[in-house]
């Protein structure tokens, strides 16, 4: 599980260069999972430039990373529209040995296939939780949806994954 670096910053006053130093990698990966590695660079840079002009609006109600991912989420949606991309251009590795966890074996190809069959909303929320490591509340802030919706979507996304993988588990 990837860990998110926490930065002790003042409640409201943020320095954009500090934000870049601490969170650029997280924002870049977040963007790469949505718009692909080719456009991730532009998306991440636009995210921080937007954040620079919106620093005064940051009220400190959430972690700086959560706030940045919210901006990145909007930037990625803008890039989807502009480049007419399908959401979630995450690159998954289908090659390699099967994954074994506590006696349960999952084929990589089957897992990737099952993930790609998810709806874009479910894929997005699975990425945010499992890969970005965000809590339900943080996901709710990034996507601007209720926490209950996050919980429900995750439940249905994993149910769908399990059903799709049913024969292979």
């Amino acid at each position: 599980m990837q860990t998110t670096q926490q930065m002790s910053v003042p409640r409201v006053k943020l320095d954009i260069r500090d934000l870049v130093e601490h969170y650029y990698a997280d924002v870049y990966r977040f963007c790469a999972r949505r718009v692909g590695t080719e456009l991730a660079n532009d998306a991440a840079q636009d995210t921080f430039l937007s954040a620079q002009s919106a620093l005064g609006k940051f009220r400190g109600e959430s972690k700086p990373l959560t706030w940045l991912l919210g901006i990145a989420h909007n930037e990625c949606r803008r890039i989807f529209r502009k480049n007419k991309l399908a959401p979630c251009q995450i690159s998954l590795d289908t090659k390699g040995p099967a994954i074994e966890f506590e006696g349960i074996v999952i084929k990589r190809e089957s897992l990737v296939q099952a993930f790609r069959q998810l709806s874009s909303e479910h894929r997005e929320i699975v990425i945010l939780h499992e890969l970005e490591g965000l809590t339900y509340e943080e996901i709710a802030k990034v996507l601007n949806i209720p926490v209950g919706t996050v919980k429900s979507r995750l439940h249905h996304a994993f149910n769908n994954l399990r059903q799709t993988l049913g024969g292979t588990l």
Partner: protein
Amino acid sequence: MNIHEDIKAYLDNELNTEDARRLEEALQNDPLAQEHLAHLKAIAHGLRLVEAEATVKGKAALLDRLATKKKFYNNPKFLALAGVAASLLIGCFFLGNLSLRDADNSEPLQYKLLAPAAKVEASPDASPTYKRAPAIRPTSAAKAMPDSAKFDKRGGSEAENLSAPEDQIQYYVQPETPAQSRSLQPSVGSAAVSNTPYLTKTDISLDVEVQDVSEASSKASNIAKDLGGFTSHLDANSSHANMSLTVPHDKVDAALEDLKRLGSLLQLTVDNTPLSGAYQNNADEEARLKESIAELRKLVNQTNKPYQREQFLSEINEKLQELDNFKHANSGIKSAARMSTIQLALEKASKPVTPPKTKSEIEQTIEDMTTGFKMVLFKVFKGLTYLAIASPVWVPLVLLGMWLARASRNKSNF
């Protein structure tokens, strides 16, 4: 509590303590739920492993871009806002500059608003009038007057032209307070004379250092002449000049202002001599003589003796002569109160002289600045008024523009 719905939340530590405890108890007796939990754990673990590692790029480039921090005046939003504000201000000024003319006299409205005092002053009804005095006949009584009340013989030809009916003579109120004494404004009409004839004679002594004495004396004579007065005495040489200027009482302030500008002021003395007492004495004597003449005339009619009659008539003639003298004396006092004497001494300056700015010039400068500022404010206010009147036209357009801009921005973002 639906176990299967909460298993994922339990797995993610998103359940509260109570719900987590209940779910753990339920899991003890539910093998299917236990299997479900194990599968979810395995899927979550697998998802984290199947992602290809992405190489982070562009961080250094971004830091370089942020290093060239934009100044606020390079911000397009700031420039747009400043442009709109400046356009609005300039537009208001030019809108306000449009001439609003009064339908009656085609005079620009701002002049009516800003210069009401000038309008009143220009009105013929309100303008102060200057009345000419009757001719002066020097008498023995007049000779008994104070020197300051005497009328110079050299001004006789000028004074004789200053004739007017008695009831139109303009007299001057004796100043009662220091504040009033600074003002030399006249009281107009005969009413002031008939009841309380406060009369005063103003004598002014003025020493001025000038560059060119002859030129300055010529200018001083012209100043007196232009104000309706005259030069009663002039004794001048190349380095010094003594002048006596006689000017109407109500023009003394103006004369002083102009004379001060001849050069550098050395000394100024203003002496107000009250003449009311002498005037009242003469008037009392007149009344006494009139009573006496009336009594003598009665005696003339009553007596049968010719020598007594002749004696009474002789006395009447003497008293009439005295009465005439007192009348002329009071007439002289009135004339003396009407005119003021300025003793002007001009000294040649050894250094170049710069005439100081007079009080009126300073006041005029301040007034000009104030009027200019008022005009700008008035034009801006007028422009704003035009904008307000035209708001039904431009406000919907602005709102439409804002709505379109917002719609365009939303479209590009999502």
